[in-house]
């Protein structure tokens, strides 16, 4: 196995163009498990750890440009105000040691349907900055996942960063696992309220071949909130609306039976998580609205 350690981003892109089968390694928390257990025998490994800009982020007007290798620990510590959903999801990844190394770029590269970043990225709204010597593509995260552990990166492309919408309202993430630390999600759900556009966005993990948004559920809820004027009057969401939303979220999933849980259990759990996260975020939104009006 050849080992390449480019010292700059340009060098990394050139190396990837020259060795399209080279496997990039960021935190290594996915790649190394595969190598240690001989599930993968890359002929070339491309170490991205010397490239400083992949470890950095920029907070812009509307988005955060998050370098591909920024570890979860940093996101939790430094970006939980701008990216609360992703910070909450990051909190549930592996263990503190894994969070010190594991990154969103790696989570996207692995594209596991169980990756915890994905529901948060889908709910917040995000684009993947994919770069090669040929140029740069901005890929909406919805289109990035193409199958179980597959994404739409070309062989010569690397992820430079993820552009994530800064939160304009409350966000939540919820995950069902068999215990708190170090579990792969049985299923996971992310929800973000976007008061500026008066929309709600969702992300479902581990309950379909790829991470997905529950679009029918979003559309139903957007219409129901609008119709009852709830964004303005800040009243509670009627239980019938929350229930219908939860059912539509369950219905959006296309889960399988596996060792971690049955399809029926996953569907049920998703409905419960959808109802709870909607309750939590809406309470927070109403609280903010109330204090804004009192001020």
């Amino acid at each position, binding site marked *: *196995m050849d080992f390449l350690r480019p010292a700059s981003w340009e060098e990394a892109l050139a190396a990837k163009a020259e060795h399209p089968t080279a496997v990039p390694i960021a935190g290594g928390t996915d790649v190394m498990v595969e190598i240690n257990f001989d599930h993968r025998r890359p002929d070339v490994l491309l170490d991205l750890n010397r490239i400083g800009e992949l470890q950095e982020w920029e907070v812009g007007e509307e988005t955060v440009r998050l370098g591909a290798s920024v570890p979860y620990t940093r996101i*939790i510590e430094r970006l939980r105000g701008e990216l609360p959903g992703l910070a909450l999801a990051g909190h549930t990844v*592996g*263990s503190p040691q894994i969070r010190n190394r594991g990154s969103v770029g790696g989570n996207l590269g692995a594209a596991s349907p169980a990756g915890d970043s994905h529901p948060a990225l889908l709910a917040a709204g995000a684009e993947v900055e994919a770069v090669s010597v040929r140029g740069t593509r901005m890929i909406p995260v919805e289109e990035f996942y193409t199958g179980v552990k597959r994404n739409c990166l070309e062989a010569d492309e690397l992820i430079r960063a993820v552009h994530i919408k800064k939160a304009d309202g409350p966000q939540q993430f919820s995950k069902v696992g068999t215990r*708190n630390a170090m579990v792969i999600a049985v299923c996971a759900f992310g929800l973000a309220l976007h008061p500026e556009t008066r929309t709600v966005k969702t992300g479902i993990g581990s309950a379909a071949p790829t991470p997905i948004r529950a679009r029918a559920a979003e559309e139903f809820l957007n219409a129901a909130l609008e119709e009852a004027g709830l964004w303005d009057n800040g009243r509670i969401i009627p239980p019938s609306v929350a229930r219908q939303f939860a059912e539509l979220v369950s219905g959006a999933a296309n889960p399988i039976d596996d060792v971690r849980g049955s399809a029926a259990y996953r569907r049920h759990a998703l409905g419960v998580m959808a109802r709870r996260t909607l309750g939590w975020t809406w309470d927070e939104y109403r609280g903010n609205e109330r204090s804004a009006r009192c001020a």
Partner: protein
Amino acid sequence: MAQSTSSVITLNVNGEKRTLPVDHRTTLLDALRERLDLTGTKKGCDQGQCGACTVLIDGRRAVSCLQLAVAAEGREITTIEGLADGDQLHPVQQAFLDLDGFQCGYCTPGQICSALAVIEEHAAGWPSAATTDVRPEAGVPPLTADEIRERMSGNLCRCGAYVSIVQAVARAAGVETAQAAPALPQQGRTEEGTAA
């Protein structure tokens, strides 16, 4: 470019420079144990799940089984062998000894390296997943037993010495042990964390 499968690297371990040839697949854990005779760092699972191989890399805790030795070149690596100052144990080591923070001791080097980082991370204001209010303005809660358990959750102990491990970490952190680690089994357990 010629394909090569090994390199000669220089690792900076416990303040000492050690030069050795390694196959590119060699993990830092195997390099430490098999090549540098630093067998304090243990291998439990080789897949990042047990924490027995935890070391400090540039001051941050990391599992050495998921780190390639070649990629560790140029970094400062601290293992359990590097903590004591001569015969003077590190305060975290002393606390584990004083409070029996182990049974067989296999997980202990990893627990101690992790504990060191826990105390520093907490002092630096990092929140944990047990921190219920993670808003930046909420600040960091005291190092309670729940906080310690969550922050140490990357280190498993097959002997189940957790009660004393939590006490040892609390002692080393200078937290009131009574508050941090109530005598668990005797007390009626209460349901924690019912969602509001």
